[in-house]
């Protein structure tokens, strides 16, 4: 109790000092901008010194009233900027696109605008990579907020381990998030644990158009030259690759990095449909869980890839080749087909090759058995991909943190998170927020992605609802649009697993099982593709080993989790 009192005293002193300083600053400056704001801060030490100038005194009074009401637990509105001046720390993993041009997120124009709008002083705890984040979890000494993207045992375990503070008792401070969750049953279900705890502030893809962003990419100009259609079946693809090799001199017609091959092409089923397999990872058929890598049909997928590898159509270095090399190969005419996304792959290459009118790319949909079929799967993300900003139990001012994070779901916040700052990064054209040339044709030569990373969060994730307008403008080139429409056509929604995590008591066993199984699958996939392991051993060795590793138990645990989710 005494400690708390002391803290209050310290805070009061700091506040007083801040006010004094801001007053001093007024005296020194010419006072050309927000005079009104300063007056307020002089008269009322409680008010934030960043009250915008245009706010009239009557509005200020109103805001005070509603603030008082919400403190009493009644009002369903938060007024920004917050009255109280707070300092909050957010831990997040370094994002190269952000730190390429700013010290950290808080220093970007976006970060500054967010702080100004909410009146919160944001400090970023920059973590080098995911491993550093895991170490932070293990240390038990947590900052106020964390950009969270998963935890062994799921959110239930993270709540039990005192990493996540469930928001249930604080939802009156997040009325706009509440409204978003209420608007859609899936949103609500996905962001709540089975005990009914609200996990945090989710990143939500607000439109189906945003769910797919990666797929198979091809040199459209080569297809045109050779009078070929976009490949649809495995045989089509084989013929196209052969033609690229023989007629276009492509040394490695199909080049793809190991991560893209496994985590996108196989895991999302870009190559599996024709062989009767939905995808490599977990999927469901009428509520029954399957693990694609443990299905018999996977053998035919591997046989196809092995054929491409053996004939020199698939990059012999696919295990080690990196994205930059692949992009360079495509632009140099050594490669004609790859797996990538609209932005980092297509966008960057098309922008780099702007000068060359012949260069053109396109995306083609997941392979199917017969031309015209609808593929069973595609790169498809859940509307809530499991990325949250969470408030920790040790947060110094939970009410303020919740109000701060709620901002992204308000009308103004949504504009800021999706489009940036009005008049700078976007303007309203015909009622639609439209990116300015600062984003689309950056005067400093930044790519769209890098420019967006400075002004918005739409390019990545964050506590807000991502809008379709972002993707429409970001991937605005005709070939990107055509790629997106080819990639989205599928029955993926039918087979996709909702974002479920296994029960907390099974979590440790599950993660041990899947750790071993995942490694084994990755290794054997590579060995079968390269032919180091003959495909004859698929049943006798591969499937048997998976069985002995107890893959059935893992599937069972996922099944329980899915049943639980559906019953909720």
């Amino acid at each position: 109790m005494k400690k708390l009192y002391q803290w209050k005293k310290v805070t009061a002193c700091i506040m007083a000092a801040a006010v004094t300083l801001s007053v001093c600053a007024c005296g020194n400056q010419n006072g050309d901008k927000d005079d009104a704001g300063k007056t307020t801060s002089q008269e009322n030490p409680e008010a934030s010194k960043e009250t915008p100038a245009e706010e009239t005194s009557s509005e200020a009074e109103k805001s005070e009233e509603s603030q008082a009401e919400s403190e009493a637990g009644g009002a369903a509105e938060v007024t920004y900027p917050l009255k109280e001046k707070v300092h909050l720390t957010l831990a997040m993993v370094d994002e190269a696109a952000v730190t390429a041009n700013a010290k950290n997120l808080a220093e970007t124009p976006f970060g500054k605008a967010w702080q100004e709008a909410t009146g919160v002083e944001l400090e970023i705890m920059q973590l080098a990579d995911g491993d550093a984040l895991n170490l932070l979890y293990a240390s038990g000494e947590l900052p106020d907020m964390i950009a969270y993207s998963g935890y062994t045992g799921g959110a239930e375990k993270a709540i039990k381990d005192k990493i996540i503070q469930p928001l249930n008792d604080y939802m009156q401070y997040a009325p706009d998030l509440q409204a978003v969750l209420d608007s859609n049953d899936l949103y609500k279900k996905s962001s709540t644990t089975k005990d009914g705890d609200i996990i945090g502030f989710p990143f939500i893809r607000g439109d189906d158009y945003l769910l797919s962003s990666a797929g198979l990419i091809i040199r459209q100009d080569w297809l045109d030259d050779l009078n070929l259609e976009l490949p649809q079946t495995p045989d089509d693809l084989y013929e196209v690759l052969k033609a690229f090799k023989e007629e276009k001199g492509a040394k490695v017609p199909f080049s793809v990095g190991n991560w893209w091959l496994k985590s996108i092409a196989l895991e999302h089923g870009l190559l599996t449909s024709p062989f009767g397999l939905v995808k490599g990872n977990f999927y469901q058929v009428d509520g029954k869980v399957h693990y694609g890598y443990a299905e018999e049909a996977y053998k035919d997928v591997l046989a196809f890839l092995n054929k491409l590898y053996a004939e020199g159509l698939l990059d012999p270095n696919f295990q080690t080749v990196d994205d930059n090399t692949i992009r360079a190969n495509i632009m140099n005419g050594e490669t004609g087909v790859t797996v990538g996304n609209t932005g980092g792959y297509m966008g960057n290459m098309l922008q780099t090759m702007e000068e060359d009118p012949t260069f053109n790319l396109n995306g083609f949909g997941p392979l199917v058995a017969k031309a015209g079929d609808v593929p069973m799967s595609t790169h498809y993300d859940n509307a809530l991909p499991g990325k949250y900003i969470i408030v920790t139990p040790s947060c110094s001012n939970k009410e303020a943190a919740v109000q701060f994070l709620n901002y992204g779901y308000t009308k103004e916040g949504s504009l800021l998170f999706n489009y940036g700052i009005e008049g700078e990064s976007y303007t309203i054209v015909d009622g639609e927020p439209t990116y300015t040339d600062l984003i689309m044709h950056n005067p400093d030569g930044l790519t769209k992605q890098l420019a967006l990373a400075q002004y918005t969060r739409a390019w990545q994730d964050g506590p807000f609802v991502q809008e379709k307008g972002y993707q429409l403008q970001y991937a605005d080139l005709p070939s990107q649009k055509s790629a997106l429409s080819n990639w989205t056509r599928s029955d993926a929604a039918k087979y996709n697993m909702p974002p479920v995590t296994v029960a907390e008591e099974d979590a440790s066993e599950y993660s041990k099982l899947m750790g071993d199984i995942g490694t084994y699958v990755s290794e054997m996939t590579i060995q079968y593709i390269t032919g180091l392991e003959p495909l004859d051993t698929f049943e006798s060795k591969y499937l048997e080993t998976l069985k002995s590793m107890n893959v059935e138990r893992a599937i069972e645990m996922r099944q329980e989790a899915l049943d639980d989710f559906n019953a909720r």
Partner: protein
Amino acid sequence: MKNKKKSGLRRLGNDLRKYSDAYMMVIPVVIFYLLFCYKPMYGILIAFKDYSPAAGIWDSDWTSSYGFQHFIDFFQSYYFTRILKNTLVISISSIIFGFPAPILLALLLNELKNEKFKRVTQTISYMPHFISMVVVCSMVQLFTSNKGFITYLLSFLGGPDCSLLTRPNYFVPIYVLSGIWQGIGWDAIIYLAALTGIDQELYEAARIDGAGRWKQTLHVTLPGISGTVIIMLLLRLGNVMNVGFEKIILLYNEGIYETADVISTFVYRKGLQDFQWGYSAAVGIFNSVINFVVVMVFNKISRKVSDVSLW
């Protein structure tokens, strides 16, 4: 027994009084070790617990099987034999091929008569030691990629023309040879120092007895540095299970886990990527225990055979 102990204590007391200055000087070192080497050992408790950061080390629950569940899981894991075998294969081949290499270099340099040439050679040979591991590994990757010069040379001898780091059976040679290249010059320094300590009169005497270069090396030089060699070997054996973890992380990929995945990389993946802190601590302890046993055994053997030992 009791008597002996008592006299031991008294001796210590006398010693303390007599050399109090020396003991004062050692205090900071002792504190350093207690603080940074012994205190953290408390953390190994998590190997026997279901560690939860919220509960902390002490209050986390013990695992089942009297706290040994993580160890049992590890021994029963599909990968146990493989990573143990890989660790031993990589480590032992590093010792067999990597340990004598700097001794040979030191002997060769010692035979050089042109001082200038000797110094230049030595400088060049220990240069790679100062290159950061990340850079060394990217160089290795470059040289062994499908367009790298090593791959190019090997393809003349019937090797594959794809990146060598995608072939399981090339990993150990790549690891060991690049290790030798990186460390040979630096490690030779200590032997060169030992060589300068050999009495020149011994060489003179040997020459008078009619020993040639080869005989001199065999009968004067080698016995002269054997003490250093054995100490270095013992120290090296103490790390037999600690293979260069960063280097493997930087070089391996899923396709060659078969030969490249070792205990330390396994610990890294389990602990830092899969959040299984307790499990990974258990594996780490297993590793340390083996190291400890190996160095004890070899120390004993060495003391019996050659009178040279660490303690």
